[in-house]
């Protein structure tokens, strides 16, 4: 079953690799993955859709939470959340179908972002299943080209973000054994 995981991660090199590593080491194939910075530029929000064995879902979340760069990993699959996907679609439109295509686009709330003699470029956002339907409908009008953004999701529950405070290091006291001269040379 598809699982939707939302993560807040530090915006650092390797952070994405660590997160996907938890999935790829178990042989899970990622359906979609989106990453972008949050309001705080040092952090990124990631939404991953992945087919995980239901028994292992909690384990996967725990293993992600264990990663040092991950501030919070949560499973949105069964919690109240809004999920959206965006599709950019080019459809070849003959003169006689152009009006029909625009009508259909309107039904799905899609916007025309480009129009030419060849056809239209349309932009639609919505729940992923809705967009599947939209793509199916457009396919019935002729050749299409589709790019999807992958799912972005936001939880409707407020989850308290628990962060660790700064930790003092052992940097202050300098104790070195007394040596006379070279010891490794």
């Amino acid at each position, binding site marked *: 079953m598809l699982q939707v995981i939302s993560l807040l*991660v*530090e915006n650092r*090199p*390797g952070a994405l*690799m*660590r997160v996907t*590593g938890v999935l790829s*080491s178990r042989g899970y194939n990622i359906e979609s993955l989106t990453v972008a910075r949050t309001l705080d530029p040092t952090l990124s929000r990631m939404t991953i859709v992945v087919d995980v064995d239901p028994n292992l879902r*909690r*384990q996967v979340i*725990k*293993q992600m*939470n*264990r*990663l*040092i*760069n*991950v*501030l*919070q990993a949560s499973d949105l699959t069964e919690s109240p959340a809004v999920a959206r996907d965006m599709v950019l679609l080019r459809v070849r439109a003959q003169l006689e179908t152009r009006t029909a295509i625009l009508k259909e686009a309107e039904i799905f709330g899609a916007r025309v972002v480009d129009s030419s003699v060849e056809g239209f470029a349309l932009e639609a956002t919505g729940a992923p299943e809705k967009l599947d339907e939209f793509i199916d409908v457009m396919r019935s009008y002729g050749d299409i080209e589709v790019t999807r953004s992958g799912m972005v999701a936001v939880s409707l529950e407020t989850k308290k973000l*628990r*962060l*660790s*405070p*700064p*930790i*003092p*290091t*052992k*940097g*202050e*006291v*300098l*104790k*070195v*054994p*007394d*040596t006379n*001269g*070279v*010891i*490794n*040379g």
Partner: protein
Amino acid sequence: MYLSRDRQGAVTTYERAVPMSNLMSGAKMLLECLVREGVDCIFGYPGGVTLPLYDALYDHPLRHVLVRHEQNAAFAAEGYARATGRVGVCCATSGPGSTNLVTGLVNAMMDSIPLVALTGQVHSKLIGSDAFQEADTFGISRSCTKHNYLVKSINDLPGIIHEAFYIAATGRPGPVLVDIPKDVFQAQGHYAPVSSIHLPGYKVYTEGHTGQIRRAAQMIWEAQRPFVYAGGGIISSGASEELRQFVEFVDAPTVCTLMGLGALPSRHPNFISMPGMHGSYAANMGMSHCDLLIALGVRFDDRVTGRLSAFAAHAKVIHVDIDPAEIGKNRVPDLPIVGDARRVLGKIVKVLQKLAPAEAPRNAAPRKAWWRQIRAWQQEHPLLPAVSSSEIKPQHLVTEIDRISNGRAVVTSDVGQHQMWACQFIRFDEPRLWISSGGLGSMGFGLPAAVGAQLARPDKLVFALVGDGGFQMSIPELATIASQGLPIKIVIMNNGYLGMVRQWQELFYNNRLSGVELECFPDVEKLGAAYGIPGRVIQRPEELSPALNAAVREPGPYLLSVKVSPFENVYPMVPSGAAVSEMVLGPPQPVAVPK
């Protein structure tokens, strides 16, 4: 001379001639941070890109131990870490140096050993260009480490080093790798001591939930047949004393896993043995018949549980672990407690003591019956070493080591039959004496681990008990042992086979022995002589005891090859996929000797 940090009390505060904030190279800065982290010794192997580091080491008080293979640098650092509880440090060059570390890193990961691995990387400008001795160490080590870093600027270096040590040592310990390009070693920067680090996403839960602890104490009182299953977490958290108080207060039978041997003294009356695939009958029957399993710092490894669905099937489980991801990974506990074993056990004992007057008598009779049952199982099928007058039985060898050690020596081992026999018959009176590759099961671990352990514990007698297979994987380290003058007693259990694989081929593959015979084992006397280490081969049972005594009397290292009966198998044994209660107690029929 070995420089002990403060064990001999010969430590002086070292005043630098230079001001606290000053200009220095990245390599010097790195050493400065290591010293501040209390490192007194690193295990390494130099190379092209670590030249600036080795130049800085030339006249630095930090001791560098030159191993003969990078894998053994990691293993030696693990031996050091496990013998002391401090972070072990190893270093290697880029490319082949860092790829050779991989086995050691995974080993440390599996056994939760605090380790910091420092690797050199090619010049920042060359990264990604397939430069000479370039490997994507950061990518390769991602899955082998608790965390890893690629240092991109000298300004980040001190902070990263302190973070690496903090991450390695805290929570569930593990290896952390820091990959440092050559130009960062060479760069000059102003060093100011780092006073704090910030890891907002790194959470360590040590205290344990108070309500859960109270409920655990209640469950422990209510249990009629409690059983303690203690593992490496007890040793990592230094909870041996708390464990002893706990099992004495509860009066529960206790097993220690391979990683946990020594957590409770082997001579303690409550100690049963190691459980699992080659555990004792009483240990496995106890696990199968208890009504409350108290799992402390363990991970329900398949070698312990056997068939998981049948494991402790009638028991409620309390699982204490510092790593939340371990809770429910294999067995879903009835009561999880995320916390440091030492803190949690201490708190449970306090709650138990408060409850004691009212609760203690309630289950007194069933508990007595439970102990009678445990003792009956112990008597029914005790772990008895096989002894013969015509040949040296491998069990005889480990009991002789046990006799000399008397619970006090450090014993390191490789992986296989000798390791299992050691677990069955060698007693450990304190933690951090038994050092063996558990989760990963890496052959060739014993000898380099002994190097680290002996350096860490110059006061201890150290046995490296190795098989003839694993020994041949670690022969280069004889040079390290000889050059460092480490008085390690290397005992080779030589049966001429890869014994454990042979045992499985015999039992499960119709005795078709394939690729397991170790022909051409070197002449140990000549081999030892080549390194300047006294060596001896024995094969008569009456020679065993005097030869071991002589080895221990020798002031320096000693190499003793003991030819043991080649077809001895480790029993009891839980066949893979079987429940632990379905263990096989001895050979099914007289063992056929193959051509």
